[in-house]
């Protein structure tokens, strides 16, 4: 039993729903009690879908339990077939139905429906939403896709996009354009946009573009083995990754690597002088593994940020995320407990967070700007405008969305110059918060354990223990703009503690500043 107040991922059957809802001509018969229909609103409200998800819930009640829930399932499946006439049906159980062990898959098979019926085994008490999506897509592909003659022209399948995916809608368009520029057309995009009939012709493509390993890696591996289709390993988020992706596609397809950079603005925007203030901004990254790995590269190589911490909530991606963290000299935070993520953020005191909607809230609470880079999604993550993460336009979008929450370059200097100004006082908050930003609570939290490094120091040496701020130093600290004050306090305390200084004076503050100056 595990106490949970909020969760990054839903149960696995919600992952199956993301696959089914993204597709056409497929119906999901879900053995589930009343109330599980709440999941419909994720799609109709958050994603603003104009159709109900293609899901029939058997809606069993307490009084059915002793009687005949199995028959209820059969009736629901038959009614669903008669009404929706799908090309294929997936059947499964939600968490409660798993306990009553009716075996929906077996029952559906005996019903002799005239379309393929695909049973799903999604262990609700062990796995989560991403697994559910990945497994469902894999089962659909395994059942329906067959080896077949390749298209004459080189084509690729784009795999991984689902309903309720973070910018999947726009990423499809961007990746299609990248391939098209290299003379490669798209055979099938799946699961989103495809029908079971489309899945059946996936074998005609020459290779697969694995857009989101979270939702399609199992299918990609199966197709590599059974359909002899290689798949791409690079996820084209960011300029460097997009170039690498294009090179990888060239190697797989034999077509010449080509990328149209006429619309690419990120490199120049990053080089232009206004971006100097981005240098070394300390950022913390959290989200699903794929987006975090991509963001780590963009943040450090293309924005000039300093990544001070990173992690993911999906354990399936723990290995590559840990490896990336090691490469950057960091320790990865792998957890699905947002309170733990919050503790890490508090301890690290980053100047910016790139995270999920939950980290955006944590950022609000701590007064740290945040940009959202990953699911779980929120209605804001389905903007009306074109806003991909992948490819050339994706890189431009990343630059804008990561920079906008920050206090802008000149604004930052003005804050320094006029830090005692009546409009620039602490409580006013940064202007992008409309002056209503909650003031951060404890500045910086507790200092982490210091590493010894002897150097000159001011103040009284005690040989460890509590560090006290003298009134003058505390006053001076208040003059530092609030958005760097937490860092200044923490750095000064670490600096003092390392040297065994018990009392922080104004001199200690400025010696620490000089020490940390880069």
């Amino acid at each position, binding site marked *: *039993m*595990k106490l949970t107040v909020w*969760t990054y991922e839903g149960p696995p059957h919600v992952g199956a729903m993301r696959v089914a809802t993204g597709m056409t001509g497929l119906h999901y018969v879900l053995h589930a009690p*009343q*109330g599980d229909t709440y999941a419909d609103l994720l799609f109709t409200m958050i994603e603003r879908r*104009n159709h*109900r998800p293609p899901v029939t*819930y058997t809606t069993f009640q307490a009084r059915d339990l002793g009687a005949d829930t199995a028959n209820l399932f059969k009736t629901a499946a038959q009614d669903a077939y008669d009404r929706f006439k799908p090309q294929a049906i997936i059947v499964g159980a939600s968490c409660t139905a798993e306990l009553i062990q009716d075996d929906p898959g077996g029952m559906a098979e005996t019903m002799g429906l005239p379309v393929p019926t695909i049973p799903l085994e999604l262990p609700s008490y062990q796995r989560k939403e991403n697994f559910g999506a990945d497994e469902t897509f894999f089962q659909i592909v395994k059942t329906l896709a067959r080896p077949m003659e390749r298209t004459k022209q080189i084509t690729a399948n784009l795999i991984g996009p689902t309903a309720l995916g973070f910018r999947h809608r726009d990423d499809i368009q961007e990746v299609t354009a990248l391939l098209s520029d290299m003379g490669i057309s798209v055979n099938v995009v799946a699961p989103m946009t495809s029908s079971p009939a489309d899945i059946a012709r996936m074998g005609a493509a020459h290779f697969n573009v694995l857009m989101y390993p979270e939702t399609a890696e199992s299918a990609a591996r199966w197709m590599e083995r059974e359909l002899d289709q290689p798949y791409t390993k690079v996820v084209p988020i960011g300029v460097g990754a997009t170039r690498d992706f294009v090179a990888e596609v060239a190697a797989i397809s034999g077509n010449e690597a080509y990328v149209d950079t006429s619309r690419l603005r990120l490199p120049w925007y990053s080089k232009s002088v206004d971006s100097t203030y981005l240098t070394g901004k300390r950022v913390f990254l959290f989200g699903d593994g794929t987006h975090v790995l991509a963001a780590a590269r963009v943040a450090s190589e293309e924005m000039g940020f300093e990544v001070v911490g990173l992690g993911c909530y999906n354990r399936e991606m723990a290995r590559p995320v840990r490896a990336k963290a090691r490469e950057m000299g960091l320790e990865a935070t792998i957890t699905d407990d947002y309170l733990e993520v919050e503790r890490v953020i508090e301890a690290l005191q980053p100047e910016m967070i790139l995270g999920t909607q939950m980290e955006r809230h944590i950022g609000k609470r701590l007064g740290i700007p945040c940009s959202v880079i990953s699911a779980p999604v929120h209605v804001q993550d389905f903007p009306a405008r074109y806003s991909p993460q992948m490819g050339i336009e994706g890189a431009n979008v990343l630059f804008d969305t990561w920079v906008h929450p920050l206090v802008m370059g000149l604004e930052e200097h003005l804050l320094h110059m006029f830090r005692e100004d009546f409009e620039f006082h602490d409580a006013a908050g940064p202007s992008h918060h409309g002056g209503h930003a909650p003031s951060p609570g404890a500045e910086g939290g507790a200092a982490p354990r210091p590493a010894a490094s002897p150097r000159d120091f001011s103040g009284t040496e005690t040989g460890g223990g509590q560090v006290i701020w003298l009134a003058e130093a505390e006053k001076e600290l208040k003059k530092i703009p609030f958005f760097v004050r937490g860092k200044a306090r923490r750095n000064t305390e670490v600096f003092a503690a390392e040297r065994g200084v018990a009392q922080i004076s104004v001199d200690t503050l400025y010696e620490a500043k000089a020490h940390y100056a880069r």
Partner: protein
Amino acid sequence: MTELPRLPTSGGCRDVPILKQRGQREVFCGLTGIIWLHRKMQDAFFLVIGSRTCAHLLQSAAGVMIFAEPRFGTAILEETDLAGLADAQTELDKVVDELLTRRPDIKQLFLVGSCPSEVIKLDLAKAAERMTQRHAPSVRVLNFSGSGIETTFTQGEDACLASMVPVLPKTEDRQLLLVGALPDVVEEQAIGLLEAMGIGPIKVLPAPRASDDLGVGPGTVYALTQPFLGDTHDALTRRGARHIPAPFPFGEEGTTQWLAAIATEFGVSADLFEQVTAAPRARARKAIAQAAEALKGKSIFFFPDSQLEIPLARFLTRECGMTAIEVGAPFIHKGLVGPDLDLLAEGPTISEGQDVDLQLDRARAARPDLTVCGLGLANPLEAEGLATKWAIELVFTPVHFYEQAGDLAGLFSRPIRRADLLKLEVS
């Protein structure tokens, strides 16, 4: 007292046959009630013993992220709990101990049953009893079920309040008890009006804090403010309290009838009643009239959801000039909504339970001007050109009594006004 309501000449809906269908239901389960109950009971924590689905439902239905550490959570059952490898009761003790250590501000803990905990027959009553002894006197532990296999949406509040009744201290005092979790501002308005008529003492269930001295006994009379409190009604009756039946306090007429029933019970004179209610009644009528302009002559179709459907249909047809095509409710408790059914003119289909696909067929055929439904259906119906009102808003928004009567009508008129306002199609 005051003038009697005009009963429909054609007869009301109390005895019309009810359409009952069995199929997929597009409704929330009772766990959803935790979203508003935890705001109302400020020293209570709601611990759902369930699955990841329950946790996901709560965060999705709340529609918000968590701003502070909330006073609800889910103890997610894991494989080891189900396989009997771990004693679920011991595991639960561990979770609760941890929770109460971290949250010393919690005085009432509700163990909330879910579909999985009901199916594996986890005895939460036993657990609550054990924990009450263990954590007495600082924390009282109660249990109720919000599972989808037993409860629909607002029934969760009913189950919660019903669980509180047996442990209320006994009192012989003559008192009025208002039952139902209402926003404070609304509750205060009702109490203000009743006190102005000299009625008292007035208590409310749920009380904001566990320490509030609420008792119950044969001297207690109670009025329900929500139509979904059937189990609570039964529990109070078992404690010797007496129900004051009345239409529910939605709209000017409903509020007046509801107040009048209480006033009669307490022997308030017609003059005093008139004196206290005249001004707010006039305000309510005026406010309703403004909002009702957009509603007059329009048709409405209710999908079953919040259980408020029958009283609202009564309000919208009698005070706003709408025509009801179908009034669906998850279940119909005539002992509670009987007075509202009496006032609702015969005509609409009254349906109980749901087969959502068949009901959607009926709605599409009828093409109502306004459809009241859950969030899962709203956008799909809008996309088919049917204006909708999300039912969940009716539970989250202050809509009871005189001062909110105009707002209540406004909730229904806004989608219709909006549809008229937008000029988006090619002309």
